[in-house]
């Protein structure tokens, strides 16, 4: 469940991040290490989310069909395939594997 209050909390926090820079009167510069850490945190979080949602359903292993589709997406992304190709190829791989009886 995603109640409205949670959506608004995320919106308020996000806006605070966005508005801090423009509101800082003097041009305060963020230390480069902080900037690097923030970028890296975003990447780590996205990769973790991709991994868990590829491999797990709830607290169980998701079966082979879904990770196989996501693996295809990974290969295509590394090869710089267009976004729609990546997503459709992943879904199609998983769907075909299930059609063939792979869970």
């Amino acid at each position, binding site marked *: 469940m*995603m109640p409205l209050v949670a959506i608004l909390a995320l919106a308020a926090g*996000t806006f605070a991040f966005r508005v801090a820079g423009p509101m800082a009167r003097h041009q305060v510069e963020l230390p480069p290490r902080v900037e690097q850490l923030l970028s890296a945190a*975003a990447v780590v979080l996205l990769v*973790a989310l991709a991994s868990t949602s590829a491999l797990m359903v709830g607290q169980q292993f998701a079966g082979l069909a*879904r990770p196989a589709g996501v693996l295809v997406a990974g290969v295509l992304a590394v090869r710089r395939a267009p976004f*729609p190709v990546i*997503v459709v190829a992943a879904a199609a791989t998983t769907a075909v594997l299930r059609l063939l009886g792979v869970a």
Partner: protein
Amino acid sequence: MRSIWRTLPAGLDRRTARDIALVCVADVLVGASFGAISVSGGLAWWVPVVLSVVVFAGGAQFAAVGVVLAGGSAFAAVVAGLVLNARLLPFGFAVADVLGTRWRTRLVGAHLTTDESVAFAIRHDDPDRRRAAFWVCAVALFGCWNLAVVGGAFAGRLVADTDAFGLDAAFPAVLVALVVPSLSTSRTRVAAAVGAVLAVATTPFLPPGLPVLVALLGLAAAVRRPGRRSQEPSPEPLDLGRSR
């Protein structure tokens, strides 16, 4: 199309205008997937729609919905979204000059600050061009993104058996497509790999939503290597625009 070119604000060159249009097309696809995945996963249609208008940050929206659809709490979803959006803090500093001095434009411009609009603004040095690139990209994306999410949310209601179509693989695939271009340095890759292993390994034991946050411990692998820091370029900002 001709008339659109003529009515572009002064300072926006054709190449930038064309690139912004391409990013909009790509974002329409991401937005539509976001709406469809959220609704086919069981959320009410207004959840992705409201998220898109008031949060307006694709990565965080996917993260929050992903946590919730995996059974995590709304609190964990908010934390995941905020961690992802913390990168907007340095972006705000980077484009503070294009937002002007009036309160209203600063507040509106801040809300429309995204990976894409920042990327277009910082491509130019000339103040007029910076301003034009930022605002055209920001306003165009806000319109495209939100309309696409509404369309996707309604399309998602039409799909009955999402597993048969492999749609459950579409969500991680979207994340992979977004994040792969940002895995540019070995330190980021190590941190991401350590984080992913931690998240998957703790999923059977921890409450849903928490394993993804545990992954942030992988950042320690990225920071505590002082000897190699000077040899590597800093990681590129998460440029969702290029990958969409």
